[in-house]
């Protein structure tokens, strides 16, 4: 089984593997360090030359580009990506001109729609097309860039950035982002969804009305969070029906998200009348009750104040009571304190924190309760 020669062979093998691994490791470290230095030098050279030529009118970009070495061309492409992400309007024209000369749009469009491209290549290509504001026909997006949530998000951003070149960009982008409602969005996707829906149109409400029933809890919560932060001004009250139905959802996190989603809609009297706030204030889940206090504090009208005042006294869960007191204090309310269920400790605490926050020396504080 373990003959001496076998063990010698094993020892030599182990030694050789270790040696090979070590040589490969050090070799890669040396190679990467040299590449870092070479790329840094190339970047500095290209940056200097670009700045020197940028404001001149007599530059032949093609001549300059052909004079650049391969690392310098790579450095230039990365510089263009970086600048075009932050520079807009006429100032970006020169950089777009160079990008055209480098044939960046064509290369990116090819990579975005080529069957063999992997996800990362496609994502980078879509990002390049977005910074260059080069739209891709919807048909091509649909047939090549729907593979993953991230490619759909990148496609939606392209639609948003080139909105004037798409028909119904809001609906198209929103549908790309939400897709079949099974995969949750990244922060980038959420940000794009806000941009596509903030203001008058809010196609998200229509998309949700049709499909919210089949969405996962995670997507429902995300969509509610988006609605919490946008101004949905035009849609009629009926567009929110699906959201009111979510108050019956079995997951407290979804119910809490649903009431929060209506935060910006407090001005819709008709919609407010259809929300059973008392039921939400009596919800078993503290998470839902806390969310409701938060929304009532945001609405802040006399109805909301009265509900908050009652909730502050009737609430039995300490943390929720504290949230209710905070909500009351955020509206500068100072209710009568002779009620039997008056939350003395929570009230004193919130007042004391307010006092500490305005930097008053301890010996000057008084009348906290």
């Amino acid at each position, binding site marked *: 089984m*373990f003959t001496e020669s076998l063990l010698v062979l094993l020892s030599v093998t182990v030694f050789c593997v*270790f040696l090979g691994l070590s040589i490969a490791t050090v070799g890669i470290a040396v190679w990467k*360090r040299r590449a870092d230095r070479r790329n840094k030098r190339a970047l500095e050279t290209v940056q200097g030359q670009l700045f020197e030529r940028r404001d001149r009118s007599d530059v032949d970009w093609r001549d300059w580009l052909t004079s650049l070495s391969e690392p310098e061309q790579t450095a230039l492409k990365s510089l263009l990506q970086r600048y075009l992400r932050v520079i807009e309007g006429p100032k970006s024209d020169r950089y777009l001109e160079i990008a055209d000369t480098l044939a960046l749009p064509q290369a990116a469009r090819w990579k975005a729609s080529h069957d063999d491209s992997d996800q990362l290549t496609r994502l980078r290509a*879509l990002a390049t097309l977005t910074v260059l504001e080069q739209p891709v026909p919807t048909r091509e997006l649909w047939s090549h860039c729907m593979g993953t949530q991230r490619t759909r998000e990148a496609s939606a951003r392209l639609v948003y950035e080139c909105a004037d070149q798409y028909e119904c960009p809001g609906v198209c982008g929103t549908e790309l982002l939400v897709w079949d409602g099974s995969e949750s969005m990244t*922060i980038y996707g959420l*940000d794009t969804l806000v941009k596509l829906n903030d203001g008058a149109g809010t196609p998200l409400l229509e998309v949700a009305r049709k499909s919210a029933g089949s969405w996962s809890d995670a997507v429902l919560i995300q969509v509610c969070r988006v609605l919490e*932060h946008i101004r949905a001004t035009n849609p009629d009250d009926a567009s929110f029906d699906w959201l009111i139905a979510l108050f019956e959802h079995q997951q407290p996190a979804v119910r809490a998200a649903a009431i929060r989603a209506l935060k910006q809609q407090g001005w819709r009297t008709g919609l407010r009348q259809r929300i059973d706030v008392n039921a939400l204030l009596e919800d078993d889940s503290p998470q839902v009750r806390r969310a409701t206090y938060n929304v009532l504090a945001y609405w802040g009208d006399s109805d909301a104040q009265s509900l908050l005042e009652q909730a502050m006294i009737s609430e039995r869960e300490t943390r929720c009571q504290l949230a209710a007191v905070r909500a009351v204090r955020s509206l500068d309310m100072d209710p009568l304190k002779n009620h039997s269920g008056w939350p003395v400790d929570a009230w*004193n*605490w919130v007042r004391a924190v307010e006092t500490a926050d305005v930097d008053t020396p301890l010996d000057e504080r008084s009348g906290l309760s």
Partner: protein
Amino acid sequence: MILDDVISGPIAAIGVVIILYILLINSVYLVLTLVGIQHTRSQQEQEAYEPAGLINSNQFLPEIAVVVPAYNEEAVIVDSVQALLSLDYPHYEIIVVNDGSTDGTLDRLVSAYGLEQVAASVPIDVQCDGPVRDVYRSPDRDLVVIDKENSDGGKADALNAGLFFTEKPLFCAIDADSLMERDALRKVVEPFVMEPRKTVATGGTVRIANEISFERGRPASVNLPKNWLVRFQVVEYLRAFFIGRTGLDRIGSLLIISGAFGLFKTDALRAVGGYDTSCVTEDMEIVMRLHRHFIEKDKQYEMTFLSFPVVWTEAPTSVPVLASQRQRWFSGLVDTLIKYRGLLFRPKYGTIGLVALPLFLIVEMFGRLVEGIGYLFFFFGIVLGLFSIPAYLFLIVSIGYGSILTATAVYGEVLTYRQYEDPVEILLLLCFAVLENVIYRPMRALFAWQGLKNHITGDTSWGVMEREGFGENSDQ
């Protein structure tokens, strides 16, 4: 040919069995390392993609309470808080829990940040053993200091004070002597944004900060520490805490989120009763309890390890301090494995019961102990001349295999994040990968046995950690 023919008698046969056990353990680690490298590379590639357009995503980031337990940390506490105040995250509060310090920890914080005492008692039941004396707040920063009495519960009790005090939905535990990279919170919170209902915990990588200087919340340059003991820990951290933990995460066996840097859903931690004050490795115990809780409640949940968000921490520079730390870790491991033995090999607990716990039992616990016996056995075997040449060859194979394992982790580091860029330092790390097997791992095995003894005798002391502070360019 049978075993007895190639080695001198039954004593050496025992040695071979021990070596085979160690080879098995190293093989498990090697598989985890390879899985970890593959996943880290793919994660890194995904991170390298920079989406187009400006992102104003702050409104989607949940609020976080960053809780720093502090016991006699007057030398570092102001710097630590300063570093935390400059994190790149829009919604967070820092809660320092002064755990009955007998030095000037509290006074330094009060004077450095103009803290005001809150003149009311906390209305919430802050479930910690040591009573809360006072709460202080900064008037112009999101900084709270809870001043509590020290109790036997130690760090876990201090963490509980922060956990039950905060109203933020996410809870981040960090050590006072650790430095979080500026964008670490943004990275580590991503799974909570993506899966707001399922994600209950995420952890980031912990790296060694000794002799590293920091600028704007990032290391200015990462050089290999000169202290040989720290160098051993650097290779160990690379293998076990960077690549190894990624591998464990990939096979659904993440049982530890480091106490130096973990992010949790506050409600989930409270639902399981907070940190266990009787356990000296509260970070492993709480993760185990969360697993058990969610599996028994039949709730879907996710815990994720991310290799990029980094926290830098000081490693022990002397053998006694290292011994104390490792004894505590091992004692805590034994304690936790015994406490959760009911989950072992139970299909009901899925991967945790069938893979993760057996792996920790066989590899982390018994593996370390068997390794210790092995080193002792071979030491006496060699001294007393009990072995023949094949046994020595076996030993060489074992050491070589262990070196390959660590060298693979170093290879993974070079392929991925390359915190150590200098090829000379990489060469040094490879040398330490070999030396580790003859110097550091025997030491670690000895500490494991001492940890076992401490567990049996009920010694739960933490020992003293000497702080040397971060590099002189530190901006903390």
